[in-house]
């Protein structure tokens, strides 16, 4: 199983998902993030899915859950870089991911996080 690395820069945790993730890896990411948030007191999480070509309902819900978990640690999550084709497909599936903030890229995602500081 592939573990997704989590980078800490300042008070923000960065996660970049590069490959076609297996379900277990996504669940593992949730756990690892929770651990990191608890250990570091980070205020923001940026999940970069620029390289992700497929997001189905399971992965979509996992991403939404990451948003909820972060909030419990008083951190905000921003999902960045979603591809148009993925966004259209998720919308058709009926997933709006309303619990997670979104931005076009990591830079804008950071602006969003800093805006609320």
């Amino acid at each position: 199983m592939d573990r997704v690395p989590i980078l800490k820069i300042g008070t923000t945790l960065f996660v970049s998902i590069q490959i076609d993730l297996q379900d277990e890896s996504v669940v593992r990411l949730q756990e690892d993030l929770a651990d990191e948030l608890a250990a570091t007191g980070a205020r923001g999480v940026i999940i970069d899915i620029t390289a992700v070509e497929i997001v189905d309902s399971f992965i979509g819900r996992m991403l939404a859950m990451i948003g909820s978990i972060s909030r419990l640690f008083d951190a905000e999550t921003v999902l960045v870089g979603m591809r148009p084709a993925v966004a259209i497909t998720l919308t058709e599936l009926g997933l709006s991911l309303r619990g997670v903030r979104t931005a076009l890229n990591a830079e804008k995602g950071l602006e969003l996080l800093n805006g609320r500081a």
Partner: protein
Amino acid sequence: MDVDSSQQRMAAYMRDHQDKVVGRWSEIVVAGLRGRSSVAEVRRELEDLYSLVVRAMSGADEQVAGELTAVLTELSGSRARNGFTPRETALGVFALKDAVFELVADVADLAPEYLAFSRMIDDLGLLTFETYAAAREQIIADQATAMLELSTPVIRLWEGVIAVPLVGALDSARTQLVMEKLLETLVATGADHAVLDITGVSTVDTEVAQHLLKTVSAARLLGAECIVSGIRPQVAQTIVSLGIEFGDIATKATLADALAHVLNRRGQRIGQQRPGQQRTEPQKPGPA
């Protein structure tokens, strides 16, 4: 296509007299085409078809049904391209019945086989009609797609703001295209706001509202907020009476109102410069 194996006798007759019957068939067809084709040209097309028909009548042959469909589809397409009506093409196929009747009219006891053969030819003639109709539908569909593409512009309205004027009917095909173009433009421009103007949308009902909501949902996944503008008074009444909820999506009467709203949200202003005066309006704050 039902193949009656008791057409063996007829099949044998037809095989033995292939040359004569195909010749006669070609003549009848050419007569019906009113000089737009020569006997030689037509004969070339019909020779293959004849052999396949005889094969089909001679016995259960898994392949022959598929081959017949292919040849007839090709014939139908080529005739259509050459300007013949589907009726002319179908009549051409039916003409085989006349040619064969001339052959077997005086042969004893072939009536039941002839009937079965006749039904088979009817089926084949109808197939050419179906193919023609299907091909026309495809052309219409392709043109509709092309038209859709032309009538869905996405405009860069201001820095960070794009506008999508929707005109005509907002059905699911157009919604797909709007979503694709809108999202691609968001990525290309880095915009964080989009105005969906529905002034030109003829009817706004629950279905249209759903399409709008879908589009807004998709744009949000790319970090952009949408405003719906162009709400006409009658439309407003329809929306309310249908119980359509726009929830937290801002709606405005005009594109201008929507632009002002967006600029406000982004902390920007368009001010008026008096002649001779330095501009004192606040510039856009920080990185946009």
